[in-house]
């Protein structure tokens, strides 16, 4: 058994007295696709932000490849091989698609602090190859500000891949997309993750996406993990049903 890529140990985060995340522990193996689901207010966003460095935990540790990375800001997690996508896409709207990806490459190769040489031809080929993989090569010259939403999600994926990540964190990867393109994007992501042995942790509302692509599912309710396991087992778990449908249901 290989060492886990990501380990959470007893993570706790309270907002004004309310424990949004209350002692969460889990591990993610290389190349594994793990979905995090739960009803509204379960603490998914908070847990996700504890893992990606945007929020500091009150207690508990996060390990990346066995190394303690608790409390590191997102940019330092990137340096340690984490790529991510956002629930509401975050790209550089005034830059072209190619520039967005080239910048991620420049950052990955530590070539940002260069002041005189034009950036135009740096990593152009590598950027094009990445865009090709996510199916955005044809739109490389377009400005991100004018792209369709689903295409922005692809650009985000390409930027995350520019880091040659071992871990991909995807917050609601298909939110806001047309239903038909949701499954296509996740299938693409799954294929790349398999090919490169990238571990993927994602939150998702669309159960077709979750059960179509996750190898394992974790269910969060009121800050605690109430179920974890293979998709069908989780689906059959009475506690999970109750958290979604209420007692009467």
């Amino acid at each position, binding site marked *: 058994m290989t060492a886990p890529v990501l380990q959470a140990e007893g993570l706790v985060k309270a907002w004004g007295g309310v424990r949004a995340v209350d002692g969460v522990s889990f591990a993610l193996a290389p190349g594994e696709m793990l979905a995090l689901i739960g009803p509204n207010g379960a603490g998914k966003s908070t847990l996700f932000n504890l893992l*990606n460095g945007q929020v500091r935990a009150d207690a508990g540790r996060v390990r990346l490849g066995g190394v303690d990375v608790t409390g590191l*800001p*997102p*940019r*330092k997690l*990137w*340096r340690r091989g984490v790529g*991510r996508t*956002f629930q509401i896409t*975050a*790209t*550089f*709207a*005034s*830059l*072209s698609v190619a*520039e*967005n990806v*080239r*910048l*991620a490459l*420049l*950052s*990955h190769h530590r*070539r*940002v*602090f*260069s*002041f*005189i*040489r*034009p*950036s*135009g031809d*740096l990593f152009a080929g590598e950027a094009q190859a990445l865009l090709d993989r996510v199916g955005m090569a044809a739109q490389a010259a377009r*400005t991100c*500000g004018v792209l369709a939403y689903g295409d922005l999600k692809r650009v985000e994926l390409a*930027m995350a891949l*520019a*880091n040659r990540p071992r871990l991909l964190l995807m917050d609601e990867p298909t939110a806001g997309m047309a239903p038909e393109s949701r499954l296509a994007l996740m299938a693409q992501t799954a294929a790349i993750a398999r090919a490169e042995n990238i571990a993927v942790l994602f939150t998702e509302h669309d159960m077709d996406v979750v059960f179509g692509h996750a190898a394992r599912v974790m269910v969060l309710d009121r800050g605690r993990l109430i179920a974890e396991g293979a998709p069908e087992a989780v689906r059959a778990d009475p506690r999970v049903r109750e958290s979604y449908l209420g007692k009467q249901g």
Partner: protein
Amino acid sequence: MLDWQGLVVQGLNGLASASSLFLVAAGLTVIFGVSRIVNFAHGSLYMLGAFLAWTLTAHGPFAELGGFLGFWGAILSAALIVAALGALVEMTVLRRLYHAPELFQLLATFALVLIVQDVALLLWGPDDKFGPRAPLLRGATVIFGARFPLYELFLIAVGPVVLGLLWLLLHRSRFGILLRAATHDREMVAALGVDQKLLFTGVFALGAGLAGLGGALQIPREAVTLHMDMAVIVEAFVVVVIGGLGSLGGAALAALIIGELHAFGILVFPRITLVLVFLVMAVVLVLRPQGLLGRGAETAPVAAPAPPLPGSLPPALRWAAIAAVAVLVAVAPFLGDYPLILLADFAVLVLFAASLHLIMGPGGMASFGHAAYFGAGAYAAALLFKHLAAPMEVGLIAAPFAAGLVGLLFGWFCVRLSGVYAAMLTLAFAQIAWSVSFQWVEVTGGDNGILGVWPSDWARGRLVFFYLSLALSAAGVVVLRRIIHAPFGLALRAQRDSPLRAEAIGLDGFFLRWIAFAVSAALAGLAGALFAYGKGSVFPSFLGIPRSVDGLLMVLLGGVQTLTGPIVGAIAYAGLQEQLARATDYWRLVLGLVILALVLFFPRGLAGAFARRAA
């Protein structure tokens, strides 16, 4: 050394000025709370209040009435007229800008400053006005053996009384309750069926009325002048920023601190009271960015304004620019001294504006104090000349380094804040720099400046100096252009577009902005040094607010989307100012109207308008 009686009197003096300051700051902060607009023109409303009160006590029905009723009738009427003006301005101008970027709102209110300046000049003339003394409050009382004017005592009472009345208004009236609700969550107030237009107009009337009252109450104690507006607005900014924007209690507390700081600062450090005030502000902002009683950013960051489109210069415009420079170089030998001086100034201003553009455009920050670095370069050159007899060549090399160091120092504080707060902090640091140049007479010569800072012999001719200015300015612009298109510039634009995404791909936004700030300061310093050699002297006005605002206007007029913007803007602005100053005494009025028109009708700037037409 003063005895304790003297200290008490000094403390009371501080209270009296705190009171006036509170009136102005309270209006500013109430307006900001609801509308999220920082009203640059608030000092102008204060000045109008003073002028109107002066007129009403001297002419018209109140003057005929005379006595107690006449005086106070005039004061209150002045405040009411200003309140009505505030409502009018909200309805005609500001209402159209609530969804515009912050900078454009500031720019619009600054245009109002210019307009009011000249309207006041038109109506009341350039001479200082002295108002009557207040009936029944003419004399002085003896406090601990020292005489203390009754009117000052009265003013001390006005602050708490107005604070109390405002409290009652905000807690006991429906209007006040709606104001407080809107300060917290405008959208929810609308969802409950409240038409916000009335609220906004009302709050502007209220805030303007307070400023007008503050101004009107000054006429028995100080001359009414055309300089009151800028003096009071800077202090009011400091007060609301220290107290916390939007917090009435904070404004009261901060007014008290600033009033007393002035009163006692004069006793202890007569030279550096201003530095003291701004240092307090800087410390507060760094330790508690939301101000002493401010609530901080509890609301989630609102969706960023539509990102500027990446503009590459239309080829036609680029060739036109190159041709224009070529024509200038060719024609220069046939021009007289005056046009050459003017053109050299233009070259300097272009570099100044282009340097500011780096942080405003690609950097996404606003600097309201860029003159600090312009001045730092100028003073570096002048001081090297004065103390070490350094020639121009040394000065031109040293100036950008000196200004860049100042930029590193100030920038370290400024770039960690954003929006209105960053703008205010840059302004504060510029005022610190200004105070040093103004008050540290032994080194800087104070108001007299440093004279005789001439170019080296070979560059002393007007033609050669113009070529030198043009060459250095062009070189600076080219360097800026390279930086913007280099990986660093790409990363700088990226952190502006999406701080979240930039951080997620390993970019350190703070560091990027900090370095950009220093680079920008260094090039502004080069412009400042050139300006100093062109004029043969340096003065504190080199780093005054007006120059900072000049820079801001040049960039915004031109549009922040492209580097061409500030260049076009600098030439247009300087040219307009020059032409207007020659054609009319009321150039500020025309300039203000032009800016207002541009903000309302061409929100993307001049170059942006051209680019759109070309597209």
